[in-house]
């Protein structure tokens, strides 16, 4: 019996392909893309203020709401945070990625790569929570700053209107630290992959031709590793744009995109506005991906 089914299928590769591809394709198309498309449609509906009901007719007025000053500020604030996190992550990631790619012995390399990838897969929420403990007013970081007698510096930082707050745990500075921490592995791995592909002979040639180590770094290594930085920035940027857990647990009253979407669809019940606002990160990411592809970042993924 099995033999006959086997022969039957062997003679019909198209049918086999359909049987293999059917279930995953149907699932992703219907459940995932279907939902995304449905969300896109909702962003063209609007919420009737008085009744609180969603009016299902095509309109652009919900998109117009995004450009109101309050919402525009949310976009600028979030994009600014995402950009800052990306830059700092690149700076922290580079030395570690460089060491792993070019100096670690093969044995160490395996372990270092495992050490970098474990936080990538492990609980994102728990890692945010760890910082809640560290940044708390009486917590370990304040204790350490106090030990170094830098309280004045901290108070001054926290008093700055745009980035400060009542304590580190409730300020944009705190969020910035946590975002940088959470997304760091996403930056290390693509940079390491890119550096891995820089031939050792090229570095030797550079130093043979008389370049100082710093010169070699600037003119040979950095340009060749740049696609890796761009690839990493796709993740750090996109993940910061859409996150609402960090702003909800560590932010102050100033909204970020994810948080705004969360509250519009939740308490406010304004699904059209929430949908329109999610299209923001989606469009930003598509533009970003197109630019990244031109810079050759996809080869480093």
């Amino acid at each position, binding site marked *: 019996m099995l*033999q006959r*089914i*086997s*022969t039957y299928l062997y003679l019909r590769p198209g049918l086999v*392909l359909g049987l*293999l*591809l059917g279930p*995953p*394709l149907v*699932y*992703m198309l219907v*459940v*995932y*893309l279907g*939902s995304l498309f*449905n969300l896109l449609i*909702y962003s063209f509906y609007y919420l009737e203020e008085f009744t609180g009901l969603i009016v299902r007719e095509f309109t652009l007025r919900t998109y117009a709401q995004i450009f109101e000053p309050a919402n525009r500020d949310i976009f600028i604030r979030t994009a600014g945070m995402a950009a800052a996190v990306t830059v700092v992550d690149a700076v922290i990631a580079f*030395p570690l990625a*460089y*060491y792993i790619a*070019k100096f*670690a012995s*093969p044995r160490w390399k*395996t372990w270092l*790569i495992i*050490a970098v*990838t*474990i*936080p990538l*897969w492990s*609980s*994102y*929420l*728990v890692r945010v*929570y*760890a910082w*809640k*403990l*560290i940044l708390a007013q009486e*917590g*370990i970081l304040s*204790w350490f700053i106090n030990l170094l007698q830098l309280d004045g510096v901290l108070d001054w930082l926290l008093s700055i209107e745009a980035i400060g707050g009542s304590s580190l745990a409730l300020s944009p500075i705190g969020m910035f630290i946590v975002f940088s*921490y959470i997304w*760091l592995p*996403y930056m290390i791995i693509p940079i390491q992959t890119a550096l*891995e592909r820089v*031939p050792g002979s090229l570095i030797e040639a550079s130093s043979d031709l008389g370049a100082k*180590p710093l010169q070699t770094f600037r003119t040979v290594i950095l340009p060749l590793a740049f696609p890796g930085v761009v690839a990493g920035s796709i993740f750090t940027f996109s993940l910061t744009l*859409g*996150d*609402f*857990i960090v702003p909800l647990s560590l932010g102050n009253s100033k909204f970020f995109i994810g948080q705004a*979407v969360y509250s519009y*669809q939740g308490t406010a019940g304004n*699904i059209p506005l*929430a949908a329109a606002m*999610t299209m923001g*990160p*989606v469009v930003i*990411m598509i533009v970003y991906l197109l630019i990244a592809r031109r810079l050759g970042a996809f080869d480093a993924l």
Partner: protein
Amino acid sequence: MPSNSSSHGPKASWGLKLAALGGLLFLHVPILIIFLYTLTPDETTYTFPLPGITFKWFGIALQRADMWRALVLSLQVAVVATLAALILGTLAAAAVYRSQFFGREAISFLLVLPIALPGIVTGIALRTAIGGFDIPFSFWTIVIGHATFCVVVVYNNVLARFRRMQGSLIEASMDLGANSFETFRHVVFPNIATALLAGGMLAFALSFDEVIVTTFTAGQQTTLPIWIFSQLSRPRDRPVTNVAAMIVMLITFVPIFYAQRLSAQSSDTEGETK
């Protein structure tokens, strides 16, 4: 893992070593802080240094039925989502590996979308669809959400393994008279088994601690990450959260570590970027 030029060339400078060590510590020390805080006797604040040492929170956590219910739900969801991902991911990988067809390149793109786009997009899209079709929130709505982003992990691992497997093995098996099913059981499956294991464990870890999509698809149900998240804003027995966080870390660490080891041993690099 390709290892070129690591033995020759100049030695790493102290500055580079220090910066690399700093990055590594920044990645790992914060987690250890949680373990430390499970021992704090301080209920209301996060005072450091700890005012003392106590083990009572483990006992109190044991009696918190709400936490255990959340843990059990998370485990059930993760198991079912992983099974779904294993089946769907393997089917997709097999299809892409063995046939040329129109839109083949688009498959990878489609599968990777749920993790490339911010989680909130997937979450709110599913929530709107669930609400729009009046589907009641249930165990299955959580599983459906998780499966969307777990499939790609299995797919990547299995496809990479297929590509390194020699096609002649399958031909030899068929030539020797095995039918497709026998070939799958005796040749293909043993070859992809560790890739399935690695992909499955990563999918399990992803699902077990996912919070963003889950907030939108869970309705009134509480998975362990959602329980922890609600504790952040409305704490009851605050240090119990530390114990719960530690449990999550330990439950996800083992599969992640093994999956990474498996990948490193078979020199797969496909598990690297999420």
